[in-house]
């Protein structure tokens, strides 16, 4: 079975939810970078294509103890159980229209291959996948701003965040022309990370100890002894992943000082949180 090779890249992200202001720059930067269409009414959030969507979390308490936080959610680029590359969506796509890049850890989407069965959307618990229910249409003249780096999607196919894969390709091309073997951290940054006015999004190679994202996340190289499906658990007690317990192994990590925010990252039975909130996988032995 193929596995995420430590020599390969494993691009990932850590988002500081204490810094995130919910301003929406990441969402718009993503839409603009990736030629995401828009339509007359986008207020039905269940059919509004937002590769990057910012969720609003509340602590559920009443006035004046209410607190809110924002949680930006790109595609989580799951490594799947055991980080073997069988992401929930990749493993179900009947036509290999979405695939796992073992050299990057990026889950790709091939629009011209996809025939729109939407099984991947059912498989994704993060709702990171969007279907083109409509033909994408731009008001007359606005198609002038479309970027040639990302092809606009036709009606009837699924799309999602690609970690701005075209930027990785461009960075690799540049490195190649300049005779370098590999790219620098700053050369490949997603559109959301560069746009964030609060600097809340840090992007880089989780496998590269020199990268900021690795230094913040400190991913555990060993599988979680309590659940062998979980790999790459953060050894930073303030860092968590969304729905980590499902074993999807996302490459998007979140950082927060606030316990109630961290708790909302996953589901817990009554009383369970207090028992496991200080458990950080194999790192507990370090």
């Amino acid at each position, binding site marked *: 079975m193929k596995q995420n090779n430590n020599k390969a890249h494993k691009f990932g992200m850590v988002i500081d939810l204490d810094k995130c202001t919910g301003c929406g720059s990441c969402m718009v930067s993503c839409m603009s970078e990736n030629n995401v269409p828009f339509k007359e009414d986008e207020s039905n959030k269940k059919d509004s294509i937002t590769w990057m969507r910012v969720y609003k979390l509340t602590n559920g308490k009443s006035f004046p103890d*209410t607190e809110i936080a924002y949680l930006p959610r790109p595609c989580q680029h799951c490594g799947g159980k055991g980080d073997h590359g069988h992401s929930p969506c990749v493993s179900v796509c009947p036509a290999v229209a979405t695939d796992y890049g073992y050299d990057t850890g990026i889950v790709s989407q091939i629009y011209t291959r996809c025939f729109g069965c939407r099984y991947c959307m059912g498989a994704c618990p993060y709702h990171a996948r969007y279907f083109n229910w409509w033909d994408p249409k731009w008001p007359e003249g606005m198609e002038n701003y479309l970027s040639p780096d990302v092809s606009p999607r036709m009606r009837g196919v699924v799309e999602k965040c690609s970690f701005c894969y075209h930027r990785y390709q461009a960075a690799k091309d540049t490195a190649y022309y300049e005779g370098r073997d590999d790219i620098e951290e700053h050369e490949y940054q997603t559109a959301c990370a560069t746009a964030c006015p609060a600097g809340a999004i840090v992007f880089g190679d989780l496998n590269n100890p020199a990268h900021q994202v690795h230094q913040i996340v400190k991913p555990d190289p060993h599988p979680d002894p309590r659940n062998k499906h979980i790999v790459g658990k953060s050894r930073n007690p303030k860092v968590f992943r969304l729905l980590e317990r499902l074993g999807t192994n996302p490459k998007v990590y979140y950082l927060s000082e606030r316990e109630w925010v961290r708790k909302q990252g996953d589901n817990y039975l009554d009383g369970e949180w207090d028992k496991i909130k200080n458990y950080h996988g194999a790192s507990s032995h370090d």
Partner: protein
Amino acid sequence: MKVDRRSFLGLGLGAVAGVAVSPIGIKLTDDSSIWSQNWPWTPVPVDGEVTYESSVCSLCPGSCGLSVRKIDDRPVKIEGLAGHPVNGGGACLHGISGLQYLYDPARVKTPLKKNGDKFEEISWDDAIALVAGKLADIRKSGSPEKLACIADKEQGSVSGLFQRLLKTFGSPNFYTMPSLESYLELTAEVLHGEGMTIGFDLENSDFVLSFGAGIIEGWGSPVNCFKANASRKERHAKLYQIESRLSNTAANADKWIPIKPGTEADLALGLCAVILENKLFNSMAVANFRGGLNKLAAALQKNYSPSKTAEITGVKVSDIEKMATLFAKAKMPVAVFGKGRGDGAQSLKELAAVHTLNCLVGNINKKGGAFVQLKSDYLEFPDESMDSIADAGFAKNKTGRYVSQLIEKVNESSKPVVEALFVYNANPCYSLHDAKSVKQAVGKVPFVVSFSSFLDETAKEADIILPSHTFLERLEDVPSGAGLAKTVVGLTKPVSQPVFNTKNPGDAVILIAKALEGSIAQSFEWESYDECLESVAGGIWDSLSEDGYAIISEGIPSGFVAVNVSYLADNPATIQAQGDDELILIPIDNMRLINAGIAASPFAIKTVSDNVLKGSDSVVEINPLTARGLKDRGYATLTTPIGKARVMINLNEGMMPGVIGMVKGLGHTLNTKHMSNKYVSNKGINVNDLIGPVIESGSGLDAAFGIKVKIFKA
């Protein structure tokens, strides 16, 4: 051969079998899928050479540096410009959406002239001649002061050209829309003297006491504020947010202090009282106070003791005392004013009271404090040549002190107070309180010239529209202000050829001036706006053109700053909301919307929560305790003394009981008979249709922080 049924059947079956085994089927299947992969109605962006150009955004006073990615001549992506002194990399969603403004088919594509109730296209020459002719008539009639102009701001060369035109024409009636910068200058004028302005050193302060300033809601220079706010985490700096609603700033703050709407001034004075009473002030600083510190102290002890303040504001006595102590004892505290984005209605009492806190703790012109310095005047316009009409007209009093008073005067008077109105970069018919009466006033003006790029609410009322280039098509100096600790002038550059038949508004003004001939034309002897800018920017032009920006001031200002507390010592009254119902409606600033003239872009609208906008309904926030029988996501009717609206309900624990919050920036009506702007128009309700102006006595400011409201299930 006899064709019977059997042979016919055989033939048919044979044909079917033949087609089935031939490659036709496979070929057609393959072709059809290839066709579906290349549907001609799905656009294919043209590839080309990639270049980056830097520029500056002028959508808001933030003045962020931008990097525009182009494919050949076509801008395709806007991002923040790394290393720019204002934003240093990031960008807000509106700036990033800039290309949606540039290419918007709903733009005014060519000069328009109103004929009856519709617009007709006219040439630039005809339009300029028409405007000049009308102005010449007004001038001839002997009352040049009846030409008025409403612009977004005073600073910058384009605004300078408008002011110059009015002055040489003979009118003092140049107005700006309310903005944070105008409030900063007013506050500085009242407390420190004329010609000064204030900046806040948020990125260094270790204790920010914000009186509703939406530091991450778009207040000031938004990206700069986002960065300063984010850096609090590493700097261990504290933010206390005083606000009736759990805004994003309040949620992000170390502590949220809910307060009864409109009592921020009282709380600030209550804090002053504690600081004075407990001798927590900086005695060196206070020694220099003029204007009756003792009188102020006495008035505060009498009217703003902690218990009285608590009663007025709803903030606990212990919190008041604790906040005052923390603020006074912090190393680098700063108190920040300007509710929301700081560009809405504000009361001078509140502005002055909050800034007095800064003066008391002696953080003026200290690191992490409030920077008070002279307004930057980096432009060097040559002296105007004024004829006698100009001299006489310009010497007259302005019709009103602020734009809201001008509107009031126009509406009150039976004779035309204003004969001609220029509107540049402003949309008063949308963004001033009681927008309907503003529209009525603008409608009463016989000749309205709009310089808008879009057919906005005010442009729709115009007689002539001289469409401006968007910020991506023009050269312009863009001074930062907006409460920044430093002053940076950026240079907006044309990153795209003009998409439509529009002009730089500076050029339009120069053309009008030239057509007016005489001393006016003599005052506008530039060939073009670009030439004008290069000459008036004089000293900083090289820096502007080479670096894209020029830093006018940076770091801690030096020099003594006088403080005069006489305004507050006279104990001005606190503004009360209009109406006599129990509940109060307040406007909410939302980063994802724009409350100034233009509508938010389709991208920005797309990001707006369905708890703010649902379909074409505005959603209002209300505490479940106040909702009494109203259901979450149900409908209700809001009735205020000036308007009525059907809204959707969002039960929200982050809202103070008794208060209803409604977002600003929705409810644009941009559709016309010929042009639908369905992506951004007719979405929700303009909160300014529900809130009317309340003029603060003394200052003359519209200080309506909200309005009393009734709410019923619809």
